[in-house]
């Protein structure tokens, strides 16, 4: 009765999800892996001209934009993630220390999470406009000449900076939210005890808040890295599907969709799959690294 198994009944409940998962999740994992090893795969009929072990991988690595894409992806991840994690941690701590207007601030900081990256990306493009954007105007107050950030002809480094500002801005909301709820779940007793021991505020932050929050910081950092590896929509929102001037902001995922956008070109789908596999292994590496670190480092 209670401890009995209800195999049949359980699978009936699971059936709708299961069918969808098999078709749209499990099968694709296998299939995408297989496409990587197929020569000139035809996506509509499934024909292919034979097998290749490394042909498609070589093709993607040899792609004109592969190394720039790797470079961009890594820069985006290693700049925007630490910046947004640190900023949002501080904002969360400050937010947690006030009572009045806490809800209002919380709501404001959360806005970027719910809004459309394409729409806001366009607004950022306007702000970073060379001729009449707000950002160049602010720089001009410091005597800096107008810079072309986003328009065709923009230099890579400037486009990258503008993109990083947008991505960091976009990533704050979720992190502030999670950190704040983490802070609110920390037992007040720790803080009371620290006060009785007359610990200074910065000491409390370093010795109590950060260690107690460390599992959450680790979790957020790792998921943000994975998210940053997959950056695409924000770039399209701000710079268009060309991924910046002459594709200079191309990322790995950008390569996937660029190739998938021309599925009739021979080998294109296999190229997309290979790029996805590269992304998959980057993510996997990070996850394994994270598991290794969190075993050693997370404070409790």
């Amino acid at each position, binding site marked *: 009765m209670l401890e009995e198994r209800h195999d049949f009944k359980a699978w009936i409940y699971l059936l709708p999800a299961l069918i969808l998962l098999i078709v749209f999740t499990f099968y694709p994992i296998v299939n995408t892996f297989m496409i990587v090893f197929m020569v000139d795969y035809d996506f509509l009929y499934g024909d292919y001209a034979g097998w290749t072990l490394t042909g498609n991988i070589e093709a993607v690595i040899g792609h004109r934009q592969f190394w720039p894409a790797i470079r961009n992806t890594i820069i985006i991840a290693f700049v925007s993630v630490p910046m947004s994690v640190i900023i949002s941690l501080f904002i969360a701590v400050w937010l947690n220390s006030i009572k009045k207007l806490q809800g209002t601030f919380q709501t404001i900081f959360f806005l970027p999470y719910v809004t459309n990256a394409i729409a806001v990306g366009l607004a950022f493009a306007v702000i970073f406009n060379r001729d009449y954007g707000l950002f160049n105007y602010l720089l001009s107050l410091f005597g800096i000449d107008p810079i072309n950030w986003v328009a065709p002809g923009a230099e890579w480094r400037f486009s990258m900076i503008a993109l990083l500002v947008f991505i960091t801005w976009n990533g704050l909301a979720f992190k502030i939210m999670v950190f704040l709820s983490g802070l609110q779940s920390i037992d007040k007793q720790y803080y009371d005890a620290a006060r009785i021991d007359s610990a200074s505020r910065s000491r409390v932050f370093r010795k109590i808040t950060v260690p107690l929050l460390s599992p959450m910081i680790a979790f957020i950092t790792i998921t943000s890295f994975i998210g940053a590896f997959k950056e695409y929509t924000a770039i399209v929102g701000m710079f268009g599907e060309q991924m910046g001037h002459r594709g200079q902001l191309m990322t790995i995922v950008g390569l996937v969709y660029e190739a998938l956008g021309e599925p009739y070109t021979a080998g294109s789908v296999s190229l997309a799959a290979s790029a996805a596999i590269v*992304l998959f292994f980057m993510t996997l590496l990070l996850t394994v690294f994270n598991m290794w670190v969190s075993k050693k480092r997370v404070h409790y």
Partner: protein
Amino acid sequence: MSAQNNETTYDTRRQIIVKRVVRYTFVYTILTFFALLVIIPFYWMILTSLMTPDKIASPVPVMFLRFRDMQFGNYYEAMFAPEAPDFIRYMANTVLVAAISTVGTIITTILSAFAFARLNFKFKELFFLLLIATMMIPGEMFVITNFITVSRLGWVEMVGQQYHHAILAMTLPFMTSIFYIFFLRQTFKQVPDELYYAAKVDGTKDFQYLWKIMVPIARPTIITILILNAMGTWNAFIWPNLVATRPAFNLVSNGLREFATAIEFLPQEEYIGQQMAAAFVITFPILVVFFLLKKHIMRGVSRSGIKG
């Protein structure tokens, strides 16, 4: 605060107040600064959407607009002008896709979360672990094959795509979500087992128990899932971009992006007002939903962070 000579000295009342004022001034100032950074893009969007081309092109940016200077015509042109993209249509498409995929998602999610939380079956742990593991895999892995699948089903006609094909292609792959199953299972698990036993003793069937007891108890979580899923569809870009081949079947994000691409090499200041108007039109419903259902959304998001 311990003094050098080991004597404890106490702050005077005045010192305490001064310290507190300094501290709070600092905290509120810095929070306000960051809040402004967050708001400026939205403000700029609205501001620009109400500007005439000459104001937009002004080298010293216009920071405020008087009401009589506001150019509401931008909204009219963005929405209704014959040569502008058909945003009304895109919104209708998006609402339809969001509704279908959300209803589908919630049904499959409730049923399978119940199985995982409440029923015993063979390979339960193994299957669940498998699901969790797939959450680690980047979505692009699925997207490629799913694109192939819907193409082979004949739903992505490159020419003359049929509406119901586009809708099917945009919804069906998203009618279940491992993350939401996991999320709802957590909530279901918190319902005490005794409730189930009590219901059993009273002769309640499993499905009745799920429907009459579990679902009402888990209502806040279910609402959160509904909202997050619907908002996700509203903001969806990549997948519809791949499978909706006719402009008329665009979702809002795709329509907006196409508009921006179309004007890229035109004199921008002529169109940026309309573009921002369109951007705000598709942002506005999300903001309304957000302010109405703030609690559900924020709670859902902060919890999803904790649970991992």
